[in-house]
């Protein structure tokens, strides 16, 4: 399909009515994902990532604007889109607990019309690839979250899709399973230039490691788009520092501190781990003295290379966690 984007949206807007209020989940989103790309949507919870995926997977209609998958309009051409796509959601509990892993996968393969023998071959091959051969005949309700997510990955990829939508696929998973899934997704994409993956995540490292291009989405709007390198380049003139503070203190005062562009903070092992993005080095002393003035003891302090999280902090004024 030369000249046709695998995934495309123009002025895409989606509103929901909730308890008498209108919530604008997506605002004029323009997105173009090329064939062969692993495209990341990075944003915090509630940013609009899942809404966007639901629209591209034909589960939700746009309120205005349009969205296309493989050149087909999601509102009018679902029959052309559904056979060539599939999706996985983080924390998914699909399937039936009394069926075994193999039986559940076979059942889902039937919804895509895959002949029994072909389905069996694909299932066996992917079970092996996802390293759950020993679980193949176990009932799915006995599996752990990570094991279940490996099954979900097989479910999505066994149908031979051209475009796969992964919505937070590694959410809450152990390091080994996350790594296995990331490696598989990357290899799957490299095997065929016509394949495309749209991945939503709020794990910076995942987006940085996997994605060819990334769109940062916040409050339903795309606030930045580019390769990980291009995005990081945007803050090369800024200063990013990291520090560990004990005891935990409220960092809300940083919002009004001159030279501070944004910060993120999370509690880790009884301490506060914070990253602060500043216009330049001149604000560093104000930040450090501000922390100590509020009773915080700085356990460690380091100046860091810019990360995608710093890009996000700069663009939105807040962290992803």
């Amino acid at each position, binding site marked *: 399909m030369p000249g046709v984007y695998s995934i495309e949206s123009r002025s895409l807007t989606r509103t929901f009515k909730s308890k008498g209020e209108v919530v604008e989940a997506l605002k004029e989103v323009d997105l173009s994902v090329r064939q062969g790309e692993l495209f990341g949507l990075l944003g915090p919870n509630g940013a609009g990532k899942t809404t966007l995926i639901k629209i591209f997977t034909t589960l939700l209609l746009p309120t205005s604007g349009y969205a296309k998958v493989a050149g087909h309009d999601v509102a009018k051409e679902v029959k052309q889109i559904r056979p060539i796509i599939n999706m996985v959601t983080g924390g998914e509990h699909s*399937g039936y607990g009394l069926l075994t892993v193999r*039986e559940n996968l076979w059942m889902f393969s039937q919804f895509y019309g895959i002949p029994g023998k072909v389905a069996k071959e694909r299932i066996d091959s992917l079970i092996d690839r996802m390293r759950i051969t020993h679980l193949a005949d176990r009932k799915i309700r006995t599996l752990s979250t990570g094991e279940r997510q490996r099954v979900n990955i097989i*479910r999505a990829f066994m149908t031979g899709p051209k475009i796969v939508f992964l919505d937070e696929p590694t959410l809450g998973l152990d390091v080994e399973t996350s790594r296995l899934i990331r490696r598989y997704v990357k290899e799957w994409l490299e095997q065929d230039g016509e394949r495309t993956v749209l991945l939503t995540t709020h794990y910076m490292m995942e987006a940085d490691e996997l994605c060819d291009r990334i769109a940062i989405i916040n409050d339903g709007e795309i606030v930045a788009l580019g390769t990980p390198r291009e995005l990081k380049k945007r803050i090369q003139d800024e200063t990013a520092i990291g520090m560990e503070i004990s005891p935990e203190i409220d960092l809300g005062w940083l919002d009004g501190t001159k030279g501070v562009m944004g910060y993120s903070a999370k509690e880790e092992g009884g301490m506060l781990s914070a990253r602060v993005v500043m216009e330049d080095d001149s604000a560093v002393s104000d930040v450090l003295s501000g922390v100590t003035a509020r009773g915080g003891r700085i356990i460690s302090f380091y100046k860091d290379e810019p990360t995608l999280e710093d890009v996000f902090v700069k663009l939105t004024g807040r962290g992803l966690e």
Partner: protein
Amino acid sequence: MNIMLNLRAVRGRAYPRVIGALREPSWMLWEVVLPMLSIAAFIYFYRSLNAPKEFEGFVVLGGVMTTYWLNVLWGMASQFYWEKETGNLQLYLAAPMSKMSILAGMALGGIFGTTVRAVSIIFIGVFVFEISFVISHPFLLVAIFMVTLLAMYGMGMMFASLYLLWGREAWNMNALFQEPIYFITGQNFPVKALGPTVAMAASVIPLTLGLDAMRQLLFPEAAGWGFLDPMLELGILCVSAVIMLVMARQLLAFMERKGRETGKLTMRWQ
């Protein structure tokens, strides 16, 4: 329409129910032994009154057909609501097959599983309570049984979309469709006893006419308790089955369209 795709989808969705009936025998206690207690109560009640033996047969047959009705309510009507909660529904909606295939698979699998239960109840009826049936018109009997199931499961397919649109209030509908339906369809007594007006109104539920017709065919000695002629009841059931299936299809399309517009079928927070 891709026929092979849809046939495979029907088979795929029926599979968990077939497996469920065979793999986990705990259902024997909940779905055969416990219901038999209420059936036994009615049988002893009729015996204490020296009622004709056929009335005991009415109760067993009522118990058999009610098993299907329970499956229609809990295994069909409520099923999409469950599927939404587990995340299966969005996978069904995003898959390429006709969504009617999913409903058909649920129905066929449900009929299989329920038939295993129903046969168990018949065996207990015959061997424990010594109920005897007379099969005088086997083809008509089979036709009425099949069309009754078609109409009942068609109704279940229709409810599946409605329950989903109603959300949690749907659970109250199941309560409404359970005990009162046992009464007005004449689960444990001939529906004719309710009088023609109530019996006619109750005929909206396919179980009523199906049960009445089968009782007349299996217990010809008590045919005088029949509400309408079995052939007429078969005709009404045929029309009813067509209406239910057409409406099920329309409601399914409406439900899917509405779900895409509002997001309420796939967004759990909605």
